[in-house]
């Protein structure tokens, strides 16, 4: 078994044994999304207009909430230090951890998004576009977020700093992700938006693990 599958398996097992952690950020997502119809009122056209934006912002915040888990616990008990001394490259370890993080935080959001979309009165096609965009976008959120999580691991005011570091970097994903739904609603093709999201995913897959590995080495000095 390669180190990558070992890490994914390990982190999934930890997530399962501490499932309340993963569930709490998922509930956070559901509650934030559900608050908007209550606050804005039941006007269907307004709700449909804002649905994708609300879901994307809520997904951003839920991811941010779960990023603290990515390295902090491993740092506290010393297992992160052992990962730095692994016989395989650190970026490979990081990729495994980020993938497991996405499986436990990003993927559940994608799976829940159709239900949330219904709450805003979206129709089948619109929901498909929204969920598809989230499927491409949430891994980018985990990947970019891992850089911030690595830079702030072990810091006292880490979580606030993490938000300040990571949220601005999420803007491109937010813009193109939410715009895909907007384009679809006005009858335009969504291909350009999906292509850009795909390009963002590929670029962050190539660069983020290396940056995160470097950041971890600096943070743990």
């Amino acid at each position, binding site marked *: 078994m390669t180190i990558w599958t070992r890490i994914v398996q390990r982190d999934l097992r*930890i997530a399962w*044994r*501490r499932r309340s952690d993963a569930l709490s950020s998922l509930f956070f997502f559901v509650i934030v999304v559900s608050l908007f119809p209550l606050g804005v009122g039941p006007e269907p056209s307004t709700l449909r207009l804002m649905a994708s934006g609300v879901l994307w912002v809520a997904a951003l915040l839920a991811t941010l909430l779960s990023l603290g888990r990515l390295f902090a616990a491993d740092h506290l*008990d*010393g*297992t992160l230090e052992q990962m730095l001394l*692994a*016989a395989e490259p650190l970026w490979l370890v990081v990729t495994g951890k980020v993938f497991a993080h996405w499986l436990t935080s990003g993927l559940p959001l994608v799976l829940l998004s159709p239900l949330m979309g219904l709450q805003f009165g979206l129709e089948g096609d619109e929901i498909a576009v929204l969920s598809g965009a989230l499927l491409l976008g949430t891994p980018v959120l985990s990947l970019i977020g891992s850089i911030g999580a690595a830079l702030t691991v072990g810091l006292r005011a880490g979580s606030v700093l993490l938000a300040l570091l990571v949220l601005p970097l999420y803007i491109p994903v937010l813009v193109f992700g939410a715009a895909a739904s907007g384009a679809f609603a006005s009858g335009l093709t969504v291909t350009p938006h999906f292509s850009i999201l795909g390009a963002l995913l590929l670029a962050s897959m190539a660069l983020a693990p290396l940056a995160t590995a470097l950041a971890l080495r600096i943070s743990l*000095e």
Partner: protein
Amino acid sequence: MLAAQSLQCVRGGRRLFENLSFAVPGGTLLRITGANGAGKTSLLRIICGLLLPSGGEVLWRDAPIRQQREDYWRELRYIGHLAGVKDEFTAEENLVFAAALSGIDITADAADAALEQLGLGKFAHLPVRMLSQGQRRRVALARLALPDSNAALWVLDEPLAALDTDAMDCVLSLIDARLAAGAVVVMTSHQPFSVAAALHSISIPV
């Protein structure tokens, strides 16, 4: 086999040590002594490559460690201040994963045997969070009892702290066996101890 050339370490603006050099052949125990805060742990972390020295270099098999990276870490086993065990996992799961990180594949039986050696046989399948501090420490040290022929360098930070006499004897006999196999062991310890192999001692002045 392991050497250091005029190492210098500055932490938080304070110079911990400078011009620290040593060279030890295989089969030697390098004991690092010094008062609290002298920089023993920092030196161990520099030897591991976790901390970059402000000056100088660590050499392993005559090449700088920063050029060898994963090849060096494949031979290195570091047991630091923190146990490096996960509370959610059983002792056995922890050992199997720790071995995988070091690039060795071990069976659950091999992990159980190592735990048995450290007197944790009964606790192999309990989540580590149920164990006491001393037992956790022993789970970490059980890594040393794994069948691990790659390990040519052990770096141990206070391995004897918080152990009872039986566990202490066990760890010392593991160290002896590893030294006899030609490995280098670097360790700090406040407890007095003795080993059969050659002992090289360096002291970090305050």
